[in-house]
Protein backbone atom coordinates (compact mmCIF):
# COMPACT_ATOMS: atom_id res chain seq x y z
CA UNK A 1 0.00 0.00 0.00
CA UNK A 2 2.80 2.36 0.93
CA UNK A 3 4.60 1.78 -2.37
CA UNK A 4 1.69 1.92 -4.81
CA UNK A 5 -1.67 2.95 -3.44
CA UNK A 6 -1.00 5.69 -0.88
CA UNK A 7 1.39 7.63 -3.17
CA UNK A 8 -1.30 7.75 -5.90
CA UNK A 9 -2.40 11.37 -6.39
CA UNK A 10 -6.13 10.65 -6.36
CA UNK A 11 -5.91 8.32 -3.38
CA UNK A 12 -3.85 10.76 -1.31
CA UNK A 13 -6.16 13.65 -2.18
CA UNK A 14 -9.24 11.59 -1.30
CA UNK A 15 -7.83 10.42 2.02
CA UNK A 16 -6.73 13.92 3.03
CA UNK A 17 -10.06 15.49 2.04
CA UNK A 18 -12.50 12.88 3.34
CA UNK A 19 -10.85 11.23 6.35
CA UNK A 20 -8.55 11.84 9.27
CA UNK A 21 -5.70 9.42 8.48
CA UNK A 22 -3.70 7.69 11.21
CA UNK A 23 -0.90 5.22 10.54
CA UNK A 24 0.59 2.75 13.01
CA UNK A 25 2.93 -0.24 12.92
CA UNK A 26 1.26 -3.63 13.12
CA UNK A 27 2.49 -4.11 16.71
CA UNK A 28 1.78 -0.60 18.06
CA UNK A 29 0.50 -0.83 21.63
CA UNK A 30 -2.25 -0.78 22.72
CA UNK A 31 -4.07 -0.34 19.41
CA UNK A 32 -2.81 -3.46 17.60
CA UNK A 33 -4.32 -5.53 20.41
CA UNK A 34 -7.42 -3.38 20.75
CA UNK A 35 -8.19 -3.88 17.05
CA UNK A 36 -6.98 -7.51 16.94
CA UNK A 37 -4.46 -6.93 14.16
CA UNK A 38 -3.25 -10.29 12.85
CA UNK A 39 -2.24 -9.35 9.31
CA UNK A 40 -1.39 -6.25 7.30
CA UNK A 41 -2.15 -4.06 5.55
CA UNK A 42 -5.27 -3.58 7.65
CA UNK A 43 -7.34 -0.47 7.00
CA UNK A 44 -10.12 0.36 9.43
CA UNK A 45 -12.69 3.14 9.45
CA UNK A 46 -13.69 4.52 12.84
CA UNK A 47 -16.32 7.01 13.85
CA UNK A 48 -15.45 10.04 15.94
CA UNK A 49 -15.83 7.97 19.11
CA UNK A 50 -13.24 5.47 17.90
CA UNK A 51 -15.74 2.71 17.13
CA UNK A 52 -14.91 0.44 14.19
CA UNK A 53 -17.42 0.23 11.31
CA UNK A 54 -15.43 -1.16 8.38
CA UNK A 55 -12.24 -3.09 7.79
CA UNK A 56 -10.31 -4.31 4.76
CA UNK A 57 -7.22 -6.51 4.96
CA UNK A 58 -4.70 -7.03 2.16
CA UNK A 59 -3.49 -4.94 -0.75
CA UNK A 60 -5.89 -2.89 -2.86
CA UNK A 61 -4.76 -1.02 -5.99
CA UNK A 62 -5.61 2.68 -6.29
CA UNK A 63 -8.62 2.07 -8.55
CA UNK A 64 -10.20 -0.18 -5.91
CA UNK A 65 -9.06 1.63 -2.79
CA UNK A 66 -11.22 4.75 -3.14
CA UNK A 67 -14.42 2.77 -3.82
CA UNK A 68 -13.55 0.52 -0.89
CA UNK A 69 -13.27 3.59 1.36
CA UNK A 70 -16.55 4.93 0.01
CA UNK A 71 -18.22 1.63 0.89
CA UNK A 72 -16.68 1.95 4.33
CA UNK A 73 -18.12 5.46 4.68
CA UNK A 74 -21.51 4.12 3.63
CA UNK A 75 -21.20 1.57 6.45
CA UNK A 76 -20.22 4.24 8.98
CA UNK A 77 -23.32 6.27 8.07
CA UNK A 78 -25.52 3.18 8.06
CA UNK A 79 -24.36 2.01 11.47
CA UNK A 80 -24.99 5.52 12.84
CA UNK A 81 -28.49 5.40 11.32
CA UNK A 82 -27.64 8.24 8.93
CA UNK A 83 -29.47 6.46 6.13
CA UNK A 84 -29.78 9.31 3.62
CA UNK A 85 -26.07 10.01 3.91
CA UNK A 86 -25.35 6.31 3.42
CA UNK A 87 -27.45 6.28 0.24
CA UNK A 88 -25.73 9.42 -1.07
CA UNK A 89 -22.26 7.93 -0.56
CA UNK A 90 -23.42 4.81 -2.37
CA UNK A 91 -24.69 6.91 -5.27
CA UNK A 92 -21.29 8.59 -5.55
CA UNK A 93 -19.57 5.21 -5.54
CA UNK A 94 -21.75 3.62 -8.20
CA UNK A 95 -21.62 6.68 -10.46
CA UNK A 96 -17.90 7.38 -10.19
CA UNK A 97 -16.63 3.80 -9.94
CA UNK A 98 -19.22 1.69 -11.81
CA UNK A 99 -16.75 -1.11 -12.52
CA UNK A 100 -15.50 -1.46 -8.95
CA UNK A 101 -15.70 -4.86 -7.32
CA UNK A 102 -17.57 -3.34 -4.36
CA UNK A 103 -20.53 -2.11 -6.46
CA UNK A 104 -22.70 -5.20 -5.76
CA UNK A 105 -22.21 -4.84 -1.99
CA UNK A 106 -22.97 -1.14 -2.34
CA UNK A 107 -26.26 -1.85 -4.13
CA UNK A 108 -27.19 -4.29 -1.35
CA UNK A 109 -26.52 -1.79 1.45
CA UNK A 110 -28.22 1.04 -0.41
CA UNK A 111 -31.34 -1.08 -0.64
CA UNK A 112 -31.18 -1.83 3.06
CA UNK A 113 -30.52 1.83 3.93
CA UNK A 114 -33.44 2.90 1.77
CA UNK A 115 -35.65 0.40 3.56
CA UNK A 116 -34.48 1.54 6.99
CA UNK A 117 -35.07 5.16 5.99
CA UNK A 118 -38.58 4.66 4.58
CA UNK A 119 -39.76 1.28 5.98
CA UNK A 120 -40.83 0.53 2.42
CA UNK A 121 -39.80 -3.07 1.60
CA UNK A 122 -39.96 -2.38 -2.13
CA UNK A 123 -36.44 -0.95 -1.80
CA UNK A 124 -35.15 -4.36 -0.73
CA UNK A 125 -36.83 -6.06 -3.66
CA UNK A 126 -35.52 -3.40 -6.05
CA UNK A 127 -31.98 -3.97 -4.78
CA UNK A 128 -32.32 -7.70 -5.40
CA UNK A 129 -33.67 -7.15 -8.91
CA UNK A 130 -30.81 -4.77 -9.72
CA UNK A 131 -28.26 -7.23 -8.39
CA UNK A 132 -29.83 -10.12 -10.31
CA UNK A 133 -29.88 -8.09 -13.53
CA UNK A 134 -26.48 -6.43 -13.30
CA UNK A 135 -24.40 -8.68 -11.01
CA UNK A 136 -26.05 -12.12 -11.13
CA UNK A 137 -22.92 -14.01 -10.05
CA UNK A 138 -22.24 -11.75 -7.09
CA UNK A 139 -22.55 -13.17 -3.60
CA UNK A 140 -24.64 -10.08 -2.83
CA UNK A 141 -27.28 -11.20 -5.33
CA UNK A 142 -27.48 -14.43 -3.33
CA UNK A 143 -27.65 -12.59 0.00
CA UNK A 144 -30.52 -10.47 -1.33
CA UNK A 145 -32.46 -13.38 -2.83
CA UNK A 146 -35.03 -13.59 0.01
CA UNK A 147 -36.10 -10.01 -0.73
CA UNK A 148 -37.63 -11.24 -3.99
CA UNK A 149 -40.32 -12.92 -1.88
CA UNK A 150 -41.45 -9.62 -0.36
CA UNK A 151 -44.79 -8.20 -1.45
Amino acid at each position, binding site marked *: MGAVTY*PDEKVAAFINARTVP*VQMAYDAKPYADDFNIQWTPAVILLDEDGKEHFRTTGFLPPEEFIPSLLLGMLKVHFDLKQFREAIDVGDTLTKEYPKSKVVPETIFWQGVANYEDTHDPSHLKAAYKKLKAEHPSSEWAIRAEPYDLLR
Partner: protein
Amino acid sequence: MAEVRWLNDMNEALQRAKNEKKPVLLDFFNPG
Protein backbone atom coordinates in the same frame (compact mmCIF):
# COMPACT_ATOMS: atom_id res chain seq x y z
CA MET B 1 3.27 14.72 -5.69
CA ALA B 2 0.41 14.30 -3.22
CA GLU B 3 1.14 12.70 0.09
CA VAL B 4 -1.20 11.39 2.73
CA ARG B 5 -0.89 13.58 5.81
CA TRP B 6 -0.71 10.78 8.35
CA LEU B 7 -1.13 11.36 12.06
CA ASN B 8 0.29 8.93 14.60
CA ASP B 9 -1.68 10.03 17.65
CA MET B 10 -5.11 8.45 18.03
CA ASN B 11 -6.41 11.04 20.50
CA GLU B 12 -5.50 13.85 18.14
CA ALA B 13 -7.16 11.97 15.27
CA LEU B 14 -10.40 11.44 17.19
CA GLN B 15 -10.51 15.10 18.20
CA ARG B 16 -10.00 16.13 14.58
CA ALA B 17 -12.67 13.65 13.48
CA LYS B 18 -15.11 15.31 15.88
CA ASN B 19 -14.20 18.80 14.74
CA GLU B 20 -14.19 18.03 11.01
CA LYS B 21 -17.08 15.49 10.98
CA LYS B 22 -14.97 12.89 9.19
CA PRO B 23 -14.23 9.24 9.86
CA VAL B 24 -10.81 8.16 11.07
CA LEU B 25 -8.89 6.03 8.59
CA LEU B 26 -6.64 3.78 10.68
CA ASP B 27 -3.90 2.03 8.73
CA PHE B 28 -1.82 -0.72 10.31
CA PHE B 29 1.29 -1.52 8.30
CA ASN B 30 4.38 -3.67 8.53
CA PRO B 31 7.45 -1.45 8.41
CA GLY B 32 9.50 -4.51 7.41
